């Protein structure tokens, strides 16, 4: 075996290399961060989540807490379908439609029975969950990723609830319905592929 200085230098260089961790993208922290930002960075998820909270606040107690509680649990079911690669047709269309429909519910002041509202929200949650679920296997840490996106989803609901609580004042009710209309328009734009 003959190895000269350049070969030795190359071997030494290769042996001394270490991973570049400039952004600490792996592990629990990276998994949580990527899961947390997933619903925040996609307009389709973001407006629909806010709409769930907004509609809940508009419908009042107990919808204000039942809808945001139903959503993550049914979303987990949709996520499981995504993980198990159970095909679900028109996932992206379903997500965009969720913003359009939920926004329209607020804008038009629709007040269905609680179980109907929960069923509508739950149906759309399956589409959102499916989209998250298909991305879960690529996560650095699956549990941290799922915790991140569930918490971010809950905080988006809370944002909608916070704005929706304005409904107790006449001017606030108008603002909430306008907010619903804006979300519905965003959903239509997503459906039309304009965003």
């Amino acid at each position, binding site marked *: 075996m003959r190895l000269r200085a350049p070969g030795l230098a190359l071997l030494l260089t290769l042996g001394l290399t270490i991973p570049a961790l400039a952004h600490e993208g792996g592990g*629990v922290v990276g998994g949580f961060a990527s899961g947390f930002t997933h619903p925040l960075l996609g307009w389709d998820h973001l407006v629909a989540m806010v709409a769930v909270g907004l509609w809940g606040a508009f419908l009042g107690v107990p919808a204000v807490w039942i809808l945001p509680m139903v959503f993550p649990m049914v979303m987990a079911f949709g996520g*499981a379908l995504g993980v198990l690669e159970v095909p679900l047709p028109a996932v992206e269309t379903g997500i965009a439609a969720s913003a359009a429909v939920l926004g329209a519910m607020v804008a038009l002041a629709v007040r269905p029975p609680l179980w109907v509202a929960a069923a509508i929200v739950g149906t759309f949650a399956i589409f959102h969950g499916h989209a*998250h*679920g298909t991305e*879960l296997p690529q996560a650095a840490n699956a549990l941290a990723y799922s915790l991140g996106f569930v918490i971010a989803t809950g905080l988006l609901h809370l944002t909608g609830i916070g704005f929706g609580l304005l409904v107790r004042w006449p001017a606030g009710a108008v603002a909430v319905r306008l907010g619903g209309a804006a979300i519905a328009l965003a959903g239509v734009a997503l459906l039309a592929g304009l965003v």
Partner: protein
Amino acid sequence: MSARSVAVILLVVVTAPRLALAHGSIQGMGSFYGGMLHPFLVPAHVLVLLALGLFLGQQAIVDLPVGFPAFMGGLATGLLVAAFGIVSLPSLAVLALAAILGVVVATAAALPPALCAALTIGAGLAVGIDSPPDALTVGGRAAALIGTGLSAILGVFYAATLVERLRRGWQRILVRIFGSWICASAFLVLALALAGKA
């Protein structure tokens, strides 16, 4: 094999090793403190312990035999099993318990005492068995296990007593929402594992 070949192989062997980061490395941390941090560094353990704290507080059974004492008994047994390496536990069992406890908290279901005890003991057992110590010496292993047990007990106790004192309607609802989040996260990862992708 020539001396040069041996030198080259030695050079590669010496420069190739990397740090073993199974649980993250914190310089200067002893076995006891490493054990204390363990339940808070493993996401599945954090989830099940938090869910158990919410559950005990919500059911108002912290000071009953089926509550906190049952958890301590289960945890102590589990840690002993881990100490002697009698059996290992699939980490999915911890997540499954977190998902079940999350559903119970989210629905605020009133469970019979026997079921409460079974869930509480099960959570303690699962966390204990799933916390085998890394230390090489007997003393180090014992210190790590004591640390793990102590921090798990304190974590559940604080969460449970805090939740038990929450009386306002919105506070009780917040507890249920946290339960739904725990259930959703655990359920998704369970599905991932069942699909063989975890």
